[in-house]
Every structure is written in C-alpha cells, then in structure tokens.
C-alpha cells in the first residue's frame, strides 16, 4: 500500500477544497431567496433593555403575518458579530447600530436600505425625532436609520455627600473650579475623579469634551472628513495640554489604569465616597440605581461638563451616544414589514415603555411622558440638555469606522498613563 500517495493526494484535495470554499464564501453574498419565509430577523445589542424590544415585537407580531424574531447578541461582541454576518445569507433584516461610523462601511458596501422613499410616504419617520439626533444616521444626504431606545449624553456625575463634606457647594461650572475641586478633594485623601481607564473608552470622553470646548465641534468634523492637519493645530495642543495638567494634578489618582467601569470598579469608587466625580454616559444613573437605589435617588448628583473660558465651543455642547438606531438590510425579503415596524419607534407605547426603564427617546412626543419616568427630574434635565445643545457630538469611537477604534482607544489611554506625549497622540490620530 502506498501511503505517501494517499497523503499527498489528500493534502492536494484539501487545498483545492479550501480554495473552493473560500471562493464560495466570497461570492456567496446574499440573496433574498435564501431568507426564511414570513420571518424578519432583528439583530439586537443584548442587555437588560431587551425587555422593551421584545414587548414591542410581541405587540407587532400579534397583528402581522410576517413574524419578527429578536436575535440578541452579547453587547461586547455586537459590532464584530454584525460585521462578520452582514454580507452573508444569514444577515439580519433589521439591525441595531449607533449611526455614523458604525454603519458607514455597510452603506459603502451597498448593504443598507435608504429610507428616503419611506420618509416621503410617511414624513413622521423623520419629523417625529429631534433633528440633531436623526442627523447621525444620515450619510451623504440619505437617511439610513430610525432612532430607537434613547439618547445617552455624557455628564459629570458626583457624589454630593463627598462634595458637601469637602465644603464644595456646587458642581464645577468652569474648568478653574474643577481644578480647584480636584485640589480640595486630593488634599482630603479622596480620589477626585473616578476613571475606569481599564476600559479605555471612559478616558476618551475627556478628550471629546476638551476638544469640543476648546476648539469647537468643527475640529473633529474636519478630522473626520479627512483633514488630519487639525490635530496639530494650536487648539488641539491646548486641549492636550489641559488634559495633561489635569492628570498631573492627580485628578484621577495613580491607579486608574487598573480600574474598569464595566466590572463595577469606577462606579463603586463614586458610590462608596472614595471618589468625588465621574465623567460618564447617562447610563451611570441606571448602573448606580441597580446597585443601590437610594444612592442614585438621593446622593448621586449630575451636571454639565464645565465651560472653558476662551474656548470656541458652546458651553451647552454635548458629546456621547446621540442615539441608537434601527437600520434595514438592503436584501431583506419584507421591506414594507420592516418599515411598519420602524414606525412603532415614535409611537406613544414605545416612548412610554422606554421612559419607564430609564431610557430617554428623542421623539417630539417624549416630553409628554417624562413625568412617568423612573426619575422624572433626571429625565427632564437630560432631555433639556439634548434639546438645547447646539451640537451633540457622537463619541469618536462610534463616529469613525470600527477599524479606527483600536488606534483611538490605545492613543488616549497611552496619553493618560504618560506612555506617549502630545506629539505621540497627534501622530496616532493623524494615522487614521
């Protein structure tokens, strides 16, 4: 028996098969024909909020012939999973996203259905939402997403008890006041500002606000459009210098790189009174609430990011997740059903359900329901911030396409821990 011949042939066969599979995988693409009949799949970021999405779907399915199925994907892996299935026959019909850069590459690959025709038939699909929010999912003049869930601006949270004990009566309104508070808290042996730098994106929030306040929203917009020279502008250096000053003043303590938000580390610092402030998205409230409802209701304070004298950005500008969106896959078998489902996103029922679990939808009818929110005062404060903000900058890591995320997050964390200086940061951002 000639074993060697066998082996050689098997390997050759395997190689040929592999090539074949690769080609098949590449050209496989997608076709409506392979999609299941009377089913519409929604790819959803999996978390506690899914209860409401499921409720809306159940209500929809009660009267619809085409049934909607909610496919929950664990949050941390959502974007990776979406990218790998989008151009395959198992792609979702409707998918959750953050607008902006999170859908740009899908739009470029011609995988997303423009909603403009639907909007022409039913203008409410656009007009029922706050314009600044709806804009996030408009790419090259075409609308690709309908806002769902809520808006999540980043705010400066505080432990009011710690501040009172330290003799600080009000949250800082200006950068100077913030620096002063940092010094007071530090002298008392308290970490002035909790920072979950282990996750890296909490660090990025400081850059987003500093750049916006110092240089205005225009700088980042230009960078996003491809003008990388803005990173070495005078304003850019000024913002970086101020961040460096804050870190060097000991505002975040010394061990922030070992702390994470996602495992509860930094929220616990704030709640236990070991830290005075935390810059975080509006979900800080629900995070604290699920740990200790009394703390969230009575001790947790919140304010806008301080204004910076001489800065070009408006003091009411916001950064954060402007909203979440639903978009429709181009190859869906039932575009009309998908459209009808998206119309629910501005219905009274949807808004009420979202408000009840602490989310803040950005529809024009949201205000009516704010009294029924989990914490009406907090909901109203947030809503007025978003409504009055001249500009609401989407988080940098969502505004850029996903492939830029690693570079951005590495650069911000290295800058904070002192591994790179201003020039290093500028160089990293220019490489995008």
């Amino acid at each position, binding site marked *: *028996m000639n*074993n060697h011949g*066998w082996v050689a042939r*098997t*390997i050759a*066969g*395997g*190689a040929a*098969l*592999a*090539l074949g*599979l*690769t080609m098949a995988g*590449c*050209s496989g693409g997608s076709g409506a024909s392979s999609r299941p009949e009377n089913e519409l799949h929604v790819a959803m970021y999996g978390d506690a909020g899914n209860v409401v999405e499921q409720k809306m779907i159940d209500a929809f399915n009660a009267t619809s012939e085409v049934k909607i199925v909610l496919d929950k994907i664990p949050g941390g892996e959502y974007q*990776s999973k979406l*990218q*790998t299935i*989008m*151009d395959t026959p198992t792609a979702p019909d409707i998918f959750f996203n953050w607008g902006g850069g999170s859908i740009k*590459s*899908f739009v470029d*690959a011609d*995988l997303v259905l423009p909603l403009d025709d639907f909007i022409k038939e039913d203008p409410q699909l656009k007009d029922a939402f706050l314009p600044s929010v709806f804009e996030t999912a408009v790419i090259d003049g075409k609308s690709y997403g309908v806002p769902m869930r809520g808006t999540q601006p980043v705010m400066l949270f505080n432990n009011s008890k710690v501040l009172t004990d330290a003799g600080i009566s009000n949250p800082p309104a200006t950068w100077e006041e913030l620096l002063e508070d940092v010094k007071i808290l530090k002298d008392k042996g308290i970490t002035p500002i909790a920072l979950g*730098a*282990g996750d*890296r994106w909490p660090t990025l929030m400081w850059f987003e606000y500093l750049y916006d306040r110092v240089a205005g929203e225009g700088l980042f917009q230009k960078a996003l459009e491809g003008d990388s020279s803005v990173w070495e502008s005078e304003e850019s250096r000024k913002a970086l210098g101020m961040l460096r000053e804050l870190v060097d003043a000991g505002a975040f*303590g*010394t*061990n*922030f*790189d*070992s*702390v*994470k938000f996602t*495992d509860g*580390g930094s929220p*616990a*610092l704030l709640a236990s009174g*070991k830290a005075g402030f935390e810059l975080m998205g509006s979900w800080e409230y629900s995070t604290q609430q699920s740990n200790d409802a009394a703390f969230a209701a009575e001790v947790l304070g919140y304010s806008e990011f301080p204004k910076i004298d001489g800065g070009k950005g408006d003091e009411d500008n916001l950064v954060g997740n402007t909203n979440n969106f639903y978009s429709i896959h181009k190859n869906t078998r039932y575009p009309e059903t998908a459209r009808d489902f998206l119309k629910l996103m501005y219905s009274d029922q949807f808004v009420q359900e979202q408000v009840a679990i602490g989310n803040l939808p950005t529809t024009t009818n949201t205000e009516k329901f704010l009294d029924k929110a989990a914490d009406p005062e907090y909901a109203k404060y947030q809503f007025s911030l978003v409504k009055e903000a001249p500009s609401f900058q989407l988080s940098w890591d969502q505004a850029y396409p*996903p*492939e830029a*995320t*690693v570079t951005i997050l*590495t650069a911000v*964390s*290295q800058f904070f*821990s002192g*591994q*790179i200086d201003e020039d290093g940061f500028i160089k990293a951002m220019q490489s995008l």
Partner: protein
Amino acid sequence: MTTTLANRRRPEGAGGPEKGRPTRRVGSSSSRPGFIWALPATIFFGLFALVPLVAVAVLSFTSWSGLGDPKFVGLKNWEALFEDPVMLQSLWLSLLFIVLGIVTQTPLSILLGVWAAGNQKNRAILSAIYFVPLLLSSAAISVLWRALLDPNFGIPGQMSWLFGDGNVLGTQTGAIAVLIFVGMWQFTPFHTLIYQGAARQIPPVLYQAASIDGAGTVRQFFSITLPQLKNSIVTSVILMVVGGLTTFETVLILTNGGPGTGTTITAFHMYQEAFRRFDFGTGSAIALVLVVISTAISFAVVRVSGYDKMRSSMEGL
C-alpha cells in the same frame, strides 16, 4: 520489568496460538493497519485544520473587511507586517511569556507531580484541591482574578505594603507579572498531572537500589526522578510553548493588551487586527506567522531533546 520489555519485543506469531490464522489482522510490521483506519481522523484534521490553514494563507494576500469580496493585494499585508512595531514587539512579548511560563510552571509542576505520585496521607485530598483551577474556564479565571486585583476593593487595596498604590495592571511589568502568575495558577495543575503519571511509571527498584547505595531523597530526585522524567518534560514544554503562543482569553479579559500595547502578544494582536479592525488580510498573515513559529519551535524542541528517536528512559532495565 524485563518481562514487559520481552513481551513488547517478542516477534509476531512466536507465541504459537496464532498458527494457522491469517497474520495480517494482528498487524505485523509488514502489514500495518490500512490507511482506512486513519481516515476519520484525517478527514477531521483536513476539514478543521488544513482547509482553514489554506484559506488563511490565501486571505493573507488579500484585503478583506468581511464585506464584499476579498481583493488581491499581493505582498502588501506582509510588507506592512514586518514594519509594524506592534507586531515586532508582540513577538518579543510572546517569547517572554513562553520563557517565563516554562520557568515558573515547570519546577513547580515537577515537584507537585512527583509528590502527588507518592502514597502519603491526605495526598488524594490535597491533589484534588490542586486540580480545581484545571476545571475552570480561562474566561472565568480571568474575570475572577480581575475582580481580586481591583486596586481599590480587591487584594491590592488591603496589601499596600506589597502592591503600592495598587496599579498592578497599569504598568507593563505589573501586567506581565499578573498574566504569568494567572497562567501559572491555571496551568500548573495540568502539567502536574503529566508529571504525576510519569513519576508513577518509574520502577521502584531504582529507588530501592539507590537507597541501598546510600543516596538520600534529594540525590534520588536529581539522579533518578529527573532523568526518568525527561520525555515527560519534553512533552510538557512543547505544550507550554504552543499554549503560550496561543494565550488569548486571559490577555483579552485581564489587560486587553494594555497598558497601551504593553501586553499585546501575537495571538491577541491577530484577534485585534481581524475582529476589531476588520482587517482580515493582516489578521491572516499574523496567524500564519504563528503557525510557522510554533511548528518551528516544536520541531526544534523535539530535535534538540532527542525525543524524535523515541528512546525509552527504561533501557537496560
């Protein structure tokens, strides 16, 4: 012992009872079991190892984000790879992880394994406790240690004389030390198991003879146990090398490759390029580099150690 060896060496059919029966079925050296016996394993290996390997090789010459068709770009990914500072650093880090892993785990697991091979009181109970980490998933272990090492609410917060301000994962040295420690905690039980099995195979006559000659426990360990464990050491080291090269979950969960790129080892770099930057071309190129390196190291270890000659450590017994 001599009987065992004799049985093994006894030529086929010499025992007599096989007389008259077709000899092929027993399998003499001239007619070993046909290739058909290896077919299931070969098909699996081909489908799940060779096919993806070839696909990855093809992808490494393309630019592909997972959307649309891969575009052939020639050697571009490979050229970029050799100029990528993170890639070069990641190779050094991987090497460091392997060396430190072997240096910390091997002595400990040999000692534990030899001890566990004995028949002391309480041995079974203690061994069972030592093996617990082996039963946990890497992800669970990483999450566990991440929580234990929280600088404000974990162990470092209570032991500032050892951890200082508790910024263990915030410095490169600290992060590497944590990963090596957790790797040791996680994998020592497995290698202990290997050495325990091997130590049990050492013929007691050797120790009896040595003690008659007046050799103490320490002398016996170095002159009998260690040489007898040689083949197991080679096996264990190869597993550590390959395991070290593919370490991933602990890095992802404990350090996320940081601080900065301080613990971005090659396997993590590959994941980051492919599934975070969606550059499957570069990711595939890194994967191939890993395949080549681990194959080369395994070959080298086998060659240098003489493992390929399969010499029994019991020759002459």
